[in-house]
């Protein structure tokens, strides 16, 4: 991300931000509510476009100066949003099938890919269930499996464990670290919890709310 700015209705959300995520590295954006962390994540995902500046994914320039160059679904990014956004009408398996439907993976390989991903996420026995039939931790694992099933170029996490109790949060943080290292997927995580950032990421970027002058 290079010199990115973003305004909403005249208010600055991101001001001249630049950073890199190394191959297989993990970066955490930390800061108080309203400092623009989630906006940065959405710009990387392609759900918002930067007003100025550039976003690169590997060697591809995916957005620049108000233009969306590569659509979100062509970036091969895995996203775990804060509310997980699980599709209530789809079973666990169907979630992954839907994601694979846009990939280049042959349909004959779906079964193996899904089984392997569910096994990694430790929800293999829940394949036929729907989101409302899963516990909070299982829902979190499904959201992660959905993000990882197509071997993404980058994994984005928005306050991934904020809704879980302390014990489950610690357990899932450890699992995520191990999983990411094993799969060698670079990651950008957003959190307001410094301790969580320390566990998940190799480096931390601290964000502050834009100064009043930029909010006019």
């Amino acid at each position, binding site marked *: 991300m290079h010199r990115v700015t973003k305004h909403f209705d005249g208010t600055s959300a991101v001001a001249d931000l630049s950073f890199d995520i190394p191959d297989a590295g993990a970066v955490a954006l930390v800061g108080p509510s309203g400092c623009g962390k*989630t906006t940065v994540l*959405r710009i990387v*995902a*392609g*759900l918002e476009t930067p007003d100025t500046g550039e976003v690169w994914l590997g060697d591809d320039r995916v957005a620049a100066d108000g233009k969306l160059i590569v*659509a*979100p*679904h062509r*970036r091969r*990014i*895995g*996203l775990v*949003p804060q*509310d997980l*956004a*699980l*599709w*209530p*009408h789809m079973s666990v398996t169907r979630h992954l099938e*839907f*994601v694979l*439907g*846009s*990939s280049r993976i042959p349909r004959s390989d779906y079964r193996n890919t899904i089984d392997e991903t569910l096994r990694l996420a430790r929800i293999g026995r829940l394949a036929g269930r729907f989101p409302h039939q899963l516990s909070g931790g299982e829902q979190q694992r499904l959201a992660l499996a*959905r993000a990882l099933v*197509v071997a993404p170029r980058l994994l984005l996490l928005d306050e991934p464990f904020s809704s879980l109790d302390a014990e489950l949060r610690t357990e899932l943080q450890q699992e995520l670290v191990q999983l990411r290292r094993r799969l060698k997927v670079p990651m950008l995580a957003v959190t307001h919890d410094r301790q969580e950032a320390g566990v998940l990421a190799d480096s931390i970027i601290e964000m502050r709310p834009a100064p009043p002058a930029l909010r006019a």
Partner: protein
Amino acid sequence: MFPDRSRTTFIAIGLAAFGALSVLPAGYMLAQSLLGPAGLSPDAYAAVVFDARQRQLLANTLQLGVGAALVAALIGIPLGFALARVPVRAVRVLRVLLAAPLAVPPYILALAWVYIAGSYSLPAAVLVLGAGFFPLVMLATEAAARAVSGDLEEAGLMVATPLRVLRNITFPLMWPLVAASMLLVFVLAISEFGVPGLLRVRVFTTEVFTAFAALFDFRQATALALPLVVLTAAVATAASRLAHAGRLTYRSGRSHGVRLRGRHWRIVAVLAAFGTIIVTVGLPVGALAREAVGATRGAGATSGAGQAIVNSVISSVAAAGMATAIGLAVGYWRARLVTRGTVAIDALLVTLFAVPSTVVGIGLIALWNRAALSAVYGTMGMVVVGAVARFTPVAAVLLAGAIRQVTVTTEEVAAVGGAGWRRVLLNVLIPQIRPALAASGLVVFVLAFGEIGTTILVSPPGESTLPIRVYTMIANAPASQVARLALVQVAAALLPLLAVATVRSARRAA
């Protein structure tokens, strides 16, 4: 929910009034047709079920309902989706204009289309009812499209094209509410009396009316009512189940989901909206105006029409007030105190609204034509009773929805602070649901002003309302005079809506 004796009394009075006025007439007809001396006889039901003429009646009724629902869906689904997802500036104005056909009594639309096309047939009735009820599907589609969480769509957009996201995520989530609205159009179409009556289509509602009012055959009328009430109840239950499917969530403030932003989408949406407004409102009103131009000033149509208009206004205002008051109690009960059987209660409310007007009318006559009730029966009070019987369920549904949006804690805090139920109701709850109360009153007024099937049966001899005047004049007065009164009817239906839309728009601008 905290216990309170005054609140219990308020709800009990409301439920008793609702039971007596809305539930009893339909229940009486059902019971009579099954158990009463004039009802259940194997011969009467054998005639209904096995007679070829009756089978044709059933086929016509089903074709009318299914056809109207499909036409309404064909127009309403794309428009509703466009209102929700195409960023058009004047979306509120478009919504009000597109919803206008709902306010116009369907038989007036049928009359206008007779002037335009001169067709008396089942397909014509299907088209008129589909074009009259499409706003229900449109508004439901818009609400569903707005309620599908943008987060869910964005999670899909990360891996799939917008079209795949719409097909696999958005539409499946919207579908239960949209299907429920189509089922509602189906039940409203099969319960409609004015349009098939005017367009000479033989369906159950017209046959019930003929059996009772022309042939004086109560037994035949009740026997004919049964399949209609059962079909209405079954479809209303299905609609209620679908509406409770509960897959919709509110959009979060940040996420956009799939929006059709391109300029070409805006042009297509605006053209489609204006085309629909012209066809469904502009052409019918224009046709009535063209016919009305030939009316002789001060003759025929207008003599006596003044009293009919006054009767309509007074009875509709009274019905709106009573239905809203009773609907508040019933809606409060439904929203706050019912924890089990919500699907069944909502289905009952929809069924009661959709019970054919002629069936309600006969039920009211059977129940109210007694010496003890002569102070009301045989007066214009019966017209009010008829409208309250038919439209209180609508008020109850609207107000239950509004009350559910108000957190119960606001009432509990007031009660803990020492306020009695009356103060809680007047100072805490009602101020928070004032727009819904106004909407309920307005909707009941518009519906009561256009009511014909029940009114034509219960109105006293020598008295008339505007719809009855128009309906009875159609057969024996010049088209120009009928059209003038029909235009008055349209104006009475549309002006309050336009006034409210203008006031709201001005307030928003301020």
